[in-house]
Protein backbone atom coordinates (compact mmCIF):
# COMPACT_ATOMS: atom_id res chain seq x y z
CA UNK A 1 0.00 0.00 0.00
CA UNK A 2 2.66 2.52 -0.95
CA UNK A 3 1.04 5.01 -3.29
CA UNK A 4 -2.49 5.61 -2.03
CA UNK A 5 -4.93 7.17 -4.42
CA UNK A 6 -7.68 9.46 -3.12
CA UNK A 7 -10.16 6.76 -4.09
CA UNK A 8 -8.37 4.26 -1.87
CA UNK A 9 -8.24 6.67 1.03
CA UNK A 10 -11.96 7.25 0.74
CA UNK A 11 -12.75 3.54 0.69
CA UNK A 12 -10.36 3.02 3.63
CA UNK A 13 -12.31 5.64 5.57
CA UNK A 14 -15.52 3.81 4.75
CA UNK A 15 -13.99 0.53 5.93
CA UNK A 16 -12.87 2.09 9.20
CA UNK A 17 -16.36 3.44 9.80
CA UNK A 18 -17.75 -0.03 9.10
CA UNK A 19 -15.23 -1.65 11.45
CA UNK A 20 -16.03 0.65 14.37
CA UNK A 21 -19.75 0.20 13.76
CA UNK A 22 -19.13 -3.57 13.94
CA UNK A 23 -17.22 -3.19 17.19
CA UNK A 24 -20.03 -1.05 18.59
CA UNK A 25 -22.57 -3.69 17.61
CA UNK A 26 -20.53 -6.41 19.32
CA UNK A 27 -20.25 -4.43 22.54
CA UNK A 28 -23.61 -2.63 22.84
CA UNK A 29 -25.61 -5.71 23.93
CA UNK A 30 -23.01 -6.53 26.57
CA UNK A 31 -22.97 -2.98 27.91
CA UNK A 32 -26.75 -2.99 27.94
CA UNK A 33 -26.66 -6.05 30.20
CA UNK A 34 -24.16 -4.40 32.51
CA UNK A 35 -26.59 -1.45 32.76
CA UNK A 36 -29.50 -3.78 33.42
CA UNK A 37 -27.51 -5.60 36.11
CA UNK A 38 -27.45 -2.43 38.25
CA UNK A 39 -31.06 -1.51 37.46
CA UNK A 40 -33.40 -1.55 40.46
CA UNK A 41 -35.96 -3.73 38.70
CA UNK A 42 -36.85 -7.40 38.97
CA UNK A 43 -37.47 -7.88 35.28
CA UNK A 44 -34.13 -6.96 33.68
CA UNK A 45 -35.69 -4.47 31.30
CA UNK A 46 -35.66 -0.77 30.60
CA UNK A 47 -36.57 1.90 31.68
CA UNK A 48 -33.84 2.48 34.21
CA UNK A 49 -35.47 2.72 37.63
CA UNK A 50 -32.48 3.51 39.79
CA UNK A 51 -29.03 2.23 40.71
CA UNK A 52 -28.65 -0.82 42.90
CA UNK A 53 -25.99 -3.37 43.71
CA UNK A 54 -28.44 -5.81 45.28
CA UNK A 55 -28.16 -8.28 42.38
CA UNK A 56 -24.42 -8.44 42.91
CA UNK A 57 -25.02 -9.15 46.59
CA UNK A 58 -27.45 -11.86 45.59
CA UNK A 59 -24.75 -13.70 43.60
CA UNK A 60 -23.12 -14.88 46.80
CA UNK A 61 -26.46 -15.73 48.38
CA UNK A 62 -27.59 -17.88 45.45
CA UNK A 63 -26.05 -21.27 46.20
CA UNK A 64 -27.00 -22.91 42.88
CA UNK A 65 -25.45 -20.04 40.92
CA UNK A 66 -22.18 -20.23 42.86
CA UNK A 67 -22.13 -24.02 42.48
CA UNK A 68 -22.59 -23.75 38.71
CA UNK A 69 -19.85 -21.11 38.53
CA UNK A 70 -17.53 -23.41 40.46
CA UNK A 71 -18.44 -26.35 38.20
CA UNK A 72 -17.63 -24.25 35.14
CA UNK A 73 -14.24 -23.25 36.52
CA UNK A 74 -13.26 -26.79 37.54
CA UNK A 75 -14.48 -28.29 34.25
CA UNK A 76 -12.68 -25.62 32.19
CA UNK A 77 -9.37 -25.99 34.04
CA UNK A 78 -9.32 -29.80 34.01
CA UNK A 79 -10.56 -30.23 30.42
CA UNK A 80 -8.17 -27.56 29.09
CA UNK A 81 -5.23 -29.27 30.83
CA UNK A 82 -6.22 -32.67 29.46
CA UNK A 83 -6.84 -31.28 25.98
CA UNK A 84 -3.44 -29.58 25.92
CA UNK A 85 -1.64 -32.70 27.17
CA UNK A 86 -3.40 -35.08 24.78
CA UNK A 87 -3.34 -32.59 21.89
CA UNK A 88 0.39 -32.01 22.33
CA UNK A 89 1.19 -35.73 22.35
CA UNK A 90 -1.10 -36.34 19.37
CA UNK A 91 0.36 -33.37 17.48
CA UNK A 92 3.87 -34.65 18.16
CA UNK A 93 3.03 -38.18 17.06
CA UNK A 94 1.34 -36.94 13.88
CA UNK A 95 3.98 -34.42 12.79
CA UNK A 96 7.19 -35.98 14.10
CA UNK A 97 6.93 -39.75 13.84
CA UNK A 98 6.00 -42.32 11.22
CA UNK A 99 4.00 -45.35 12.20
CA UNK A 100 1.16 -47.34 10.68
CA UNK A 101 -2.12 -45.71 11.65
CA UNK A 102 -0.66 -42.21 11.84
CA UNK A 103 -3.13 -40.83 9.33
CA UNK A 104 -6.00 -42.53 11.10
CA UNK A 105 -4.97 -40.78 14.32
CA UNK A 106 -4.78 -37.49 12.40
CA UNK A 107 -8.33 -37.97 11.13
CA UNK A 108 -9.69 -38.98 14.54
CA UNK A 109 -7.99 -35.98 16.16
CA UNK A 110 -9.62 -33.53 13.77
CA UNK A 111 -13.09 -35.09 13.59
CA UNK A 112 -14.62 -33.35 16.66
CA UNK A 113 -13.94 -30.00 14.98
CA UNK A 114 -16.25 -30.81 12.08
CA UNK A 115 -19.07 -32.46 13.99
CA UNK A 116 -21.94 -30.33 15.34
CA UNK A 117 -21.58 -30.28 19.12
CA UNK A 118 -25.10 -31.58 19.71
CA UNK A 119 -24.41 -34.76 17.68
CA UNK A 120 -21.24 -35.40 19.69
CA UNK A 121 -23.16 -34.66 22.89
CA UNK A 122 -25.95 -37.11 22.05
CA UNK A 123 -23.42 -39.81 21.06
CA UNK A 124 -21.61 -39.38 24.40
CA UNK A 125 -24.87 -39.22 26.34
CA UNK A 126 -26.31 -42.46 24.96
CA UNK A 127 -22.95 -44.15 25.47
CA UNK A 128 -22.81 -43.08 29.11
CA UNK A 129 -26.39 -44.27 29.58
CA UNK A 130 -25.46 -47.54 27.86
CA UNK A 131 -22.49 -48.00 30.18
CA UNK A 132 -24.50 -46.94 33.21
CA UNK A 133 -22.22 -43.98 34.04
CA UNK A 134 -23.80 -41.16 36.08
CA UNK A 135 -23.73 -37.70 34.54
CA UNK A 136 -21.79 -34.96 36.30
CA UNK A 137 -18.60 -32.95 36.21
CA UNK A 138 -16.39 -35.82 34.95
CA UNK A 139 -18.66 -36.49 31.99
CA UNK A 140 -18.67 -32.81 30.99
CA UNK A 141 -14.87 -32.83 31.30
CA UNK A 142 -14.70 -35.81 28.93
CA UNK A 143 -16.95 -34.06 26.40
CA UNK A 144 -15.05 -30.77 26.55
CA UNK A 145 -11.69 -32.51 26.24
CA UNK A 146 -12.76 -34.40 23.12
CA UNK A 147 -14.18 -31.18 21.72
CA UNK A 148 -11.02 -29.14 22.37
CA UNK A 149 -8.37 -31.69 21.27
CA UNK A 150 -8.50 -30.73 17.55
CA UNK A 151 -7.77 -27.10 18.36
CA UNK A 152 -4.96 -27.77 20.83
CA UNK A 153 -3.42 -30.42 18.52
CA UNK A 154 -3.59 -28.05 15.55
CA UNK A 155 -2.07 -25.09 17.41
CA UNK A 156 0.76 -27.25 18.75
CA UNK A 157 1.30 -29.19 15.50
CA UNK A 158 1.85 -25.97 13.56
CA UNK A 159 4.57 -25.11 16.06
CA UNK A 160 6.15 -28.59 15.93
CA UNK A 161 6.20 -28.52 12.14
CA UNK A 162 8.41 -25.43 12.33
CA UNK A 163 11.06 -27.06 14.53
CA UNK A 164 14.26 -28.02 12.76
CA UNK A 165 14.71 -31.79 12.71
CA UNK A 166 18.45 -31.38 13.07
CA UNK A 167 17.84 -30.46 16.70
CA UNK A 168 16.28 -33.86 17.28
CA UNK A 169 19.10 -35.63 15.48
CA UNK A 170 21.77 -33.65 17.27
CA UNK A 171 20.23 -34.47 20.63
CA UNK A 172 20.06 -38.15 19.75
CA UNK A 173 23.62 -38.19 18.44
CA UNK A 174 24.63 -36.79 21.79
CA UNK A 175 22.97 -39.74 23.45
CA UNK A 176 19.52 -38.47 24.31
CA UNK A 177 16.68 -40.99 24.26
CA UNK A 178 13.58 -40.20 22.21
CA UNK A 179 11.64 -39.43 25.36
CA UNK A 180 14.21 -36.98 26.62
CA UNK A 181 14.20 -35.33 23.19
CA UNK A 182 10.48 -34.80 23.66
CA UNK A 183 10.94 -33.49 27.17
CA UNK A 184 14.05 -31.39 26.62
CA UNK A 185 13.68 -30.25 22.99
CA UNK A 186 10.11 -30.39 21.75
CA UNK A 187 8.11 -29.35 24.81
CA UNK A 188 10.28 -26.28 25.59
CA UNK A 189 10.25 -25.22 21.93
CA UNK A 190 6.49 -25.69 21.73
CA UNK A 191 5.86 -23.78 24.97
CA UNK A 192 4.80 -20.56 23.20
CA UNK A 193 1.97 -22.51 21.53
CA UNK A 194 0.94 -24.31 24.71
CA UNK A 195 -0.30 -21.14 26.42
CA UNK A 196 -2.66 -20.02 23.64
CA UNK A 197 -3.79 -23.65 23.22
CA UNK A 198 -4.63 -23.83 26.91
CA UNK A 199 -6.45 -20.48 26.87
CA UNK A 200 -8.40 -21.47 23.78
CA UNK A 201 -9.50 -24.77 25.33
CA UNK A 202 -10.36 -22.92 28.54
CA UNK A 203 -12.62 -20.46 26.74
CA UNK A 204 -14.16 -23.22 24.63
CA UNK A 205 -15.11 -25.12 27.76
CA UNK A 206 -16.23 -22.15 29.83
CA UNK A 207 -18.46 -20.89 27.04
CA UNK A 208 -19.85 -24.25 25.93
CA UNK A 209 -23.55 -24.81 26.29
CA UNK A 210 -24.41 -27.63 23.87
CA UNK A 211 -22.26 -30.40 25.36
CA UNK A 212 -22.74 -29.35 28.98
CA UNK A 213 -26.51 -29.24 28.50
CA UNK A 214 -26.59 -32.97 27.73
CA UNK A 215 -23.70 -34.19 29.85
CA UNK A 216 -23.74 -32.21 33.10
CA UNK A 217 -26.62 -33.98 34.88
CA UNK A 218 -27.14 -32.22 38.19
CA UNK A 219 -23.68 -30.59 38.11
CA UNK A 220 -24.92 -27.72 35.95
CA UNK A 221 -22.26 -25.44 34.49
CA UNK A 222 -22.83 -21.69 34.37
CA UNK A 223 -24.27 -21.60 30.82
CA UNK A 224 -26.63 -24.49 31.63
CA UNK A 225 -27.79 -22.77 34.81
CA UNK A 226 -28.22 -19.54 32.83
CA UNK A 227 -30.33 -21.38 30.27
CA UNK A 228 -32.55 -22.90 32.94
CA UNK A 229 -32.87 -19.41 34.46
CA UNK A 230 -34.38 -18.13 31.24
CA UNK A 231 -37.50 -20.10 32.02
CA UNK A 232 -37.64 -18.78 35.58
CA UNK A 233 -37.09 -15.01 35.23
CA UNK A 234 -36.85 -14.48 38.99
CA UNK A 235 -33.48 -16.30 38.86
CA UNK A 236 -32.08 -14.07 36.15
CA UNK A 237 -30.89 -10.82 37.80
CA UNK A 238 -28.07 -12.38 39.87
CA UNK A 239 -27.01 -14.53 36.89
CA UNK A 240 -26.73 -11.46 34.69
CA UNK A 241 -24.84 -9.67 37.48
CA UNK A 242 -22.30 -12.50 37.64
CA UNK A 243 -22.02 -12.55 33.83
CA UNK A 244 -21.44 -8.79 33.92
CA UNK A 245 -18.60 -9.33 36.37
CA UNK A 246 -17.11 -11.92 34.00
CA UNK A 247 -17.48 -9.51 31.06
CA UNK A 248 -15.77 -6.71 33.00
CA UNK A 249 -13.07 -9.01 34.37
CA UNK A 250 -12.25 -10.41 30.95
CA UNK A 251 -12.20 -6.94 29.40
CA UNK A 252 -9.78 -5.69 32.06
CA UNK A 253 -7.58 -8.78 31.64
CA UNK A 254 -7.43 -8.28 27.86
CA UNK A 255 -6.63 -4.56 28.20
CA UNK A 256 -3.83 -5.29 30.70
CA UNK A 257 -2.48 -8.07 28.47
CA UNK A 258 -2.46 -5.77 25.42
CA UNK A 259 -0.66 -3.04 27.36
CA UNK A 260 1.95 -5.51 28.59
CA UNK A 261 2.35 -6.91 25.09
CA UNK A 262 2.84 -3.47 23.53
CA UNK A 263 5.33 -2.54 26.26
CA UNK A 264 7.28 -5.75 25.75
CA UNK A 265 7.31 -5.29 21.98
CA UNK A 266 8.57 -1.72 22.41
CA UNK A 267 11.28 -2.81 24.81
CA UNK A 268 12.26 -5.49 22.33
CA UNK A 269 12.69 -2.86 19.66
CA UNK A 270 14.76 -0.66 21.98
CA UNK A 271 16.99 -3.63 22.80
CA UNK A 272 17.56 -4.32 19.14
CA UNK A 273 18.47 -0.67 18.54
Amino acid at each position, binding site marked *: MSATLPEQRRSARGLWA*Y*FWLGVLFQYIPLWL*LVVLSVNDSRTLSLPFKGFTLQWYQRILETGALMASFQNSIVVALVSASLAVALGTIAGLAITRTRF*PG*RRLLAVATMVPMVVPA*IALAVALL*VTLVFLGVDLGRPTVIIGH*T*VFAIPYTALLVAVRFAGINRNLEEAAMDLGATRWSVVRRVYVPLAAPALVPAFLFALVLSFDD*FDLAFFLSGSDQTLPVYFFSGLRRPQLLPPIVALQSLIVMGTTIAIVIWEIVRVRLARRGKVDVA
Partner: protein
Amino acid sequence: VSTPTSQNTTTESAPKPPPRASARARHRPPDPTKARAFGFQLAALPSLWLLLFLVLPVVVLLLWSLRPPGIASFTATDGFTLEAFRVNLGTPVFIASLGRTIVMVFFVAFFAVALSYPIAYLLARIAGPRRYVLLSLIVAPALISYLLRLFAWRSMLGSGGALNTVLLELGLTGEPLGFLLYNRFAVVVVLTYVWIPFAALPIFARLEQLNPNLLAAAQDLGASPRRTFLRVTLPLSLPGVYAGFFFVFIPTLGDFATAALVGGADGRMFGNIIRGVIGTPDYPSGAVLSIMLFMVAAASMLIAFRLLRIKDVSDLA
Protein backbone atom coordinates in the same frame (compact mmCIF):
# COMPACT_ATOMS: atom_id res chain seq x y z
CA VAL B 1 -7.76 -37.09 -9.76
CA SER B 2 -7.83 -37.49 -6.04
CA THR B 3 -11.25 -37.16 -4.46
CA PRO B 4 -11.80 -35.82 -0.96
CA THR B 5 -12.70 -39.33 0.18
CA SER B 6 -9.15 -40.45 -0.48
CA GLN B 7 -8.18 -39.10 2.94
CA ASN B 8 -9.41 -42.30 4.53
CA THR B 9 -7.87 -44.65 2.07
CA THR B 10 -4.41 -43.14 1.83
CA THR B 11 -2.02 -46.03 2.12
CA GLU B 12 0.84 -46.22 4.50
CA SER B 13 2.79 -48.28 1.98
CA ALA B 14 3.05 -45.23 -0.28
CA PRO B 15 6.61 -44.38 -1.33
CA LYS B 16 8.66 -43.16 1.57
CA PRO B 17 9.27 -39.41 1.75
CA PRO B 18 12.48 -38.38 0.03
CA PRO B 19 15.47 -38.37 2.38
CA ARG B 20 15.96 -35.03 4.04
CA ALA B 21 19.11 -33.06 3.49
CA SER B 22 20.03 -33.61 7.11
CA ALA B 23 19.98 -37.38 6.67
CA ARG B 24 23.41 -37.21 5.10
CA ALA B 25 24.84 -35.87 8.32
CA ARG B 26 23.64 -38.82 10.41
CA HIS B 27 26.38 -40.75 12.13
CA ARG B 28 24.26 -43.80 12.85
CA PRO B 29 21.73 -45.27 10.51
CA PRO B 30 18.29 -44.66 12.03
CA ASP B 31 16.58 -47.68 13.46
CA PRO B 32 13.14 -47.75 11.79
CA THR B 33 11.76 -50.35 14.20
CA LYS B 34 12.63 -48.20 17.19
CA ALA B 35 11.28 -45.06 15.53
CA ARG B 36 8.04 -46.83 14.77
CA ALA B 37 7.79 -48.19 18.30
CA PHE B 38 8.29 -44.68 19.61
CA GLY B 39 5.51 -43.42 17.33
CA PHE B 40 3.19 -46.05 18.77
CA GLN B 41 4.16 -45.13 22.33
CA LEU B 42 3.43 -41.47 21.72
CA ALA B 43 0.17 -42.18 19.95
CA ALA B 44 -1.06 -44.64 22.58
CA LEU B 45 -2.59 -42.21 25.04
CA PRO B 46 -4.42 -39.86 22.64
CA SER B 47 -5.52 -42.87 20.57
CA LEU B 48 -6.94 -44.56 23.64
CA TRP B 49 -8.78 -41.38 24.63
CA LEU B 50 -10.28 -40.90 21.19
CA LEU B 51 -11.14 -44.58 20.90
CA LEU B 52 -13.02 -44.49 24.20
CA PHE B 53 -14.71 -41.12 23.89
CA LEU B 54 -15.12 -40.60 20.15
CA VAL B 55 -15.09 -43.91 18.28
CA LEU B 56 -16.92 -45.94 20.91
CA PRO B 57 -19.71 -43.31 21.27
CA VAL B 58 -20.27 -43.35 17.52
CA VAL B 59 -20.53 -47.16 17.58
CA VAL B 60 -22.90 -47.08 20.56
CA LEU B 61 -24.93 -44.36 18.82
CA LEU B 62 -25.35 -46.70 15.86
CA LEU B 63 -26.39 -49.52 18.20
CA TRP B 64 -29.00 -47.28 19.85
CA SER B 65 -30.38 -46.27 16.47
CA LEU B 66 -31.15 -49.94 15.78
CA ARG B 67 -33.25 -50.34 18.94
CA PRO B 68 -37.02 -49.86 18.96
CA PRO B 69 -37.96 -46.18 19.37
CA GLY B 70 -39.31 -44.82 22.64
CA ILE B 71 -36.91 -46.44 25.09
CA ALA B 72 -34.44 -44.81 27.49
CA SER B 73 -32.79 -47.97 28.78
CA PHE B 74 -30.81 -50.09 26.35
CA THR B 75 -32.04 -53.33 27.86
CA ALA B 76 -35.71 -52.28 27.93
CA THR B 77 -36.58 -54.67 25.11
CA ASP B 78 -34.89 -57.28 22.98
CA GLY B 79 -33.79 -57.28 19.40
CA PHE B 80 -32.56 -54.92 16.74
CA THR B 81 -34.85 -53.23 14.25
CA LEU B 82 -34.92 -50.44 11.70
CA GLU B 83 -38.13 -49.14 13.26
CA ALA B 84 -36.49 -45.95 14.65
CA PHE B 85 -35.19 -45.08 11.18
CA ARG B 86 -38.58 -45.83 9.62
CA VAL B 87 -40.50 -43.72 12.15
CA ASN B 88 -38.20 -40.72 12.12
CA LEU B 89 -37.39 -40.62 8.43
CA GLY B 90 -41.12 -41.03 7.85
CA THR B 91 -42.01 -37.98 9.92
CA PRO B 92 -42.39 -35.14 7.39
CA VAL B 93 -42.01 -32.49 10.10
CA PHE B 94 -38.50 -33.76 10.93
CA ILE B 95 -37.36 -33.90 7.33
CA ALA B 96 -38.81 -30.45 6.62
CA SER B 97 -37.08 -29.12 9.73
CA LEU B 98 -33.74 -30.51 8.61
CA GLY B 99 -34.18 -28.90 5.19
CA ARG B 100 -35.24 -25.59 6.70
CA THR B 101 -32.31 -25.70 9.14
CA ILE B 102 -29.83 -26.25 6.30
CA VAL B 103 -31.28 -23.24 4.44
CA MET B 104 -31.22 -21.04 7.56
CA VAL B 105 -27.65 -22.04 8.39
CA PHE B 106 -26.61 -21.45 4.79
CA PHE B 107 -27.86 -17.86 5.05
CA VAL B 108 -26.20 -17.42 8.44
CA ALA B 109 -22.83 -18.59 7.09
CA PHE B 110 -23.26 -16.55 3.91
CA PHE B 111 -24.12 -13.30 5.72
CA ALA B 112 -21.49 -13.85 8.42
CA VAL B 113 -18.78 -14.24 5.76
CA ALA B 114 -20.06 -11.34 3.63
CA LEU B 115 -20.32 -8.99 6.60
CA SER B 116 -16.99 -10.00 8.13
CA TYR B 117 -15.02 -9.78 4.88
CA PRO B 118 -14.61 -5.97 4.99
CA ILE B 119 -13.45 -6.25 8.61
CA ALA B 120 -10.90 -8.93 7.76
CA TYR B 121 -9.76 -6.93 4.72
CA LEU B 122 -9.33 -3.73 6.69
CA LEU B 123 -7.37 -5.44 9.46
CA ALA B 124 -5.16 -7.54 7.20
CA ARG B 125 -4.41 -5.04 4.43
CA ILE B 126 -4.88 -1.52 5.82
CA ALA B 127 -4.69 -1.46 9.62
CA GLY B 128 -0.92 -2.00 9.80
CA PRO B 129 0.86 -3.04 12.99
CA ARG B 130 -2.21 -2.43 15.15
CA ARG B 131 -4.12 -5.20 13.40
CA TYR B 132 -3.79 -7.82 16.14
CA VAL B 133 -4.99 -5.44 18.84
CA LEU B 134 -7.99 -4.50 16.69
CA LEU B 135 -8.68 -8.13 15.84
CA SER B 136 -8.74 -9.12 19.51
CA LEU B 137 -10.99 -6.12 20.15
CA ILE B 138 -13.65 -7.55 17.87
CA VAL B 139 -13.15 -11.23 18.74
CA ALA B 140 -12.98 -10.78 22.53
CA PRO B 141 -16.69 -10.19 23.20
CA ALA B 142 -17.48 -13.23 21.08
CA LEU B 143 -15.45 -15.42 23.42
CA ILE B 144 -17.11 -14.28 26.61
CA SER B 145 -20.56 -15.75 26.62
CA TYR B 146 -22.51 -17.04 23.74
CA LEU B 147 -25.72 -17.37 25.77
CA LEU B 148 -25.26 -13.95 27.30
CA ARG B 149 -25.04 -12.40 23.86
CA LEU B 150 -28.18 -14.22 22.77
CA PHE B 151 -29.95 -13.04 25.87
CA ALA B 152 -28.72 -9.50 25.32
CA TRP B 153 -30.18 -9.52 21.84
CA ARG B 154 -33.47 -10.77 23.13
CA SER B 155 -33.48 -7.98 25.71
CA MET B 156 -32.90 -5.51 22.90
CA LEU B 157 -35.41 -6.80 20.38
CA GLY B 158 -38.27 -7.95 22.65
CA SER B 159 -41.56 -6.08 22.94
CA GLY B 160 -40.40 -4.60 26.28
CA GLY B 161 -36.84 -4.37 24.98
CA ALA B 162 -34.48 -1.48 24.44
CA LEU B 163 -35.17 -0.97 20.75
CA ASN B 164 -38.95 -0.89 21.12
CA THR B 165 -38.67 1.35 24.19
CA VAL B 166 -36.64 3.84 22.18
CA LEU B 167 -38.97 3.65 19.17
CA LEU B 168 -42.02 4.17 21.39
CA GLU B 169 -40.40 7.10 23.24
CA LEU B 170 -39.52 8.76 19.95
CA GLY B 171 -43.05 8.22 18.71
CA LEU B 172 -41.79 6.32 15.66
CA THR B 173 -44.18 3.51 16.37
CA GLY B 174 -47.53 3.38 18.13
CA GLU B 175 -47.10 -0.11 19.55
CA PRO B 176 -44.12 -2.42 20.15
CA LEU B 177 -42.87 -4.10 16.98
CA GLY B 178 -43.55 -7.82 17.34
CA PHE B 179 -41.80 -9.13 14.23
CA LEU B 180 -38.31 -8.54 15.65
CA LEU B 181 -38.42 -11.73 17.69
CA TYR B 182 -39.73 -15.29 17.67
CA ASN B 183 -39.41 -16.16 14.02
CA ARG B 184 -36.76 -17.71 11.81
CA PHE B 185 -35.67 -14.31 10.55
CA ALA B 186 -34.67 -13.36 14.11
CA VAL B 187 -32.74 -16.63 14.46
CA VAL B 188 -30.77 -15.94 11.27
CA VAL B 189 -30.03 -12.35 12.32
CA VAL B 190 -28.86 -13.29 15.81
CA LEU B 191 -26.76 -16.26 14.65
CA THR B 192 -25.13 -14.11 11.98
CA TYR B 193 -24.30 -11.51 14.60
CA VAL B 194 -22.84 -14.16 16.91
CA TRP B 195 -20.63 -15.63 14.17
CA ILE B 196 -19.27 -12.50 12.43
CA PRO B 197 -16.10 -12.25 14.55
CA PHE B 198 -15.26 -15.94 14.03
CA ALA B 199 -15.93 -15.85 10.30
CA ALA B 200 -13.44 -12.98 10.05
CA LEU B 201 -10.57 -15.10 11.40
CA PRO B 202 -9.80 -17.44 8.44
CA ILE B 203 -10.36 -14.60 5.95
CA PHE B 204 -7.98 -12.41 7.93
CA ALA B 205 -5.36 -15.17 8.04
CA ARG B 206 -5.61 -15.66 4.28
CA LEU B 207 -5.52 -11.95 3.38
CA GLU B 208 -2.59 -11.39 5.68
CA GLN B 209 -0.50 -13.94 3.75
CA LEU B 210 -1.28 -12.28 0.44
CA ASN B 211 1.88 -11.30 -1.40
CA PRO B 212 1.86 -7.47 -1.67
CA ASN B 213 3.99 -7.72 -4.82
CA LEU B 214 1.00 -9.17 -6.65
CA LEU B 215 -1.08 -6.12 -5.79
CA ALA B 216 1.75 -3.79 -6.75
CA ALA B 217 2.17 -5.66 -10.04
CA ALA B 218 -1.55 -5.35 -10.80
CA GLN B 219 -1.40 -1.62 -10.16
CA ASP B 220 1.76 -1.19 -12.20
CA LEU B 221 0.00 -2.88 -15.07
CA GLY B 222 -2.69 -0.22 -14.83
CA ALA B 223 -5.43 -1.99 -12.91
CA SER B 224 -7.67 0.28 -10.87
CA PRO B 225 -7.91 -0.46 -7.12
CA ARG B 226 -11.38 -1.84 -7.74
CA ARG B 227 -10.15 -4.11 -10.51
CA THR B 228 -7.14 -5.16 -8.47
CA PHE B 229 -9.48 -6.18 -5.68
CA LEU B 230 -11.91 -8.07 -7.91
CA ARG B 231 -9.30 -9.82 -10.05
CA VAL B 232 -6.44 -10.41 -7.58
CA THR B 233 -7.30 -9.95 -3.93
CA LEU B 234 -10.75 -11.54 -3.89
CA PRO B 235 -9.88 -14.71 -5.86
CA LEU B 236 -6.76 -15.25 -3.78
CA SER B 237 -8.74 -14.86 -0.55
CA LEU B 238 -11.40 -17.40 -1.57
CA PRO B 239 -9.89 -20.28 0.44
CA GLY B 240 -10.26 -18.10 3.55
CA VAL B 241 -13.83 -17.29 2.55
CA TYR B 242 -14.71 -20.96 2.11
CA ALA B 243 -13.00 -21.85 5.39
CA GLY B 244 -14.94 -19.08 7.15
CA PHE B 245 -18.18 -20.28 5.61
CA PHE B 246 -17.80 -23.86 6.80
CA PHE B 247 -16.32 -22.74 10.11
CA VAL B 248 -19.75 -21.16 10.70
CA PHE B 249 -21.93 -23.62 8.78
CA ILE B 250 -21.00 -26.91 10.44
CA PRO B 251 -21.25 -26.01 14.15
CA THR B 252 -24.41 -23.95 13.55
CA LEU B 253 -26.22 -26.93 12.01
CA GLY B 254 -26.80 -28.32 15.50
CA ASP B 255 -27.52 -25.06 17.29
CA PHE B 256 -30.59 -25.12 19.49
CA ALA B 257 -30.06 -22.43 22.15
CA THR B 258 -30.56 -19.55 19.71
CA ALA B 259 -33.82 -20.90 18.36
CA ALA B 260 -34.98 -21.66 21.90
CA LEU B 261 -34.31 -18.05 22.91
CA VAL B 262 -35.34 -15.96 19.94
CA GLY B 263 -36.93 -18.41 17.48
CA GLY B 264 -40.38 -19.15 18.83
CA ALA B 265 -42.36 -21.88 17.05
CA ASP B 266 -41.53 -20.49 13.61
CA GLY B 267 -37.77 -20.49 14.18
CA ARG B 268 -37.36 -24.01 15.56
CA MET B 269 -34.28 -25.73 14.22
CA PHE B 270 -33.29 -29.36 13.87
CA GLY B 271 -31.26 -29.12 17.08
CA ASN B 272 -34.44 -28.24 18.98
CA ILE B 273 -36.08 -31.41 17.67
CA ILE B 274 -33.13 -33.54 18.77
CA ARG B 275 -33.19 -31.90 22.17
CA GLY B 276 -36.94 -32.54 22.47
CA VAL B 277 -36.66 -36.19 21.46
CA ILE B 278 -33.74 -36.79 23.85
CA GLY B 279 -35.73 -35.09 26.60
CA THR B 280 -38.77 -37.35 26.02
CA PRO B 281 -36.61 -39.53 26.54
CA ASP B 282 -36.45 -41.52 23.31
CA TYR B 283 -32.80 -42.40 22.76
CA PRO B 284 -33.14 -44.55 19.62
CA SER B 285 -34.94 -41.69 17.83
CA GLY B 286 -32.41 -39.21 19.19
CA ALA B 287 -29.66 -41.44 17.82
CA VAL B 288 -31.30 -41.59 14.37
CA LEU B 289 -31.73 -37.80 14.24
CA SER B 290 -28.13 -37.28 15.38
CA ILE B 291 -26.92 -39.64 12.66
CA MET B 292 -28.86 -37.53 10.13
CA LEU B 293 -27.07 -34.45 11.44
CA PHE B 294 -23.72 -36.28 11.26
CA MET B 295 -24.45 -37.11 7.62
CA VAL B 296 -25.26 -33.50 6.72
CA ALA B 297 -22.10 -32.31 8.47
CA ALA B 298 -20.02 -34.97 6.71
CA ALA B 299 -21.49 -34.05 3.32
CA SER B 300 -20.74 -30.36 3.84
CA MET B 301 -17.24 -31.34 4.99
CA LEU B 302 -16.65 -33.17 1.71
CA ILE B 303 -17.81 -30.10 -0.21
CA ALA B 304 -15.48 -27.95 1.91
CA PHE B 305 -12.54 -30.28 1.26
CA ARG B 306 -13.20 -30.17 -2.47
CA LEU B 307 -13.50 -26.37 -2.53
CA LEU B 308 -10.39 -25.96 -0.40
CA ARG B 309 -8.56 -28.66 -2.40
CA ILE B 310 -7.68 -30.46 0.80
CA LYS B 311 -6.84 -34.02 -0.10
CA ASP B 312 -5.55 -35.12 3.21
CA VAL B 313 -6.02 -34.11 6.82
CA SER B 314 -2.28 -33.61 7.14
CA ASP B 315 -2.81 -30.62 4.83
CA LEU B 316 -4.61 -28.99 7.72
CA ALA B 317 -1.60 -29.00 9.99
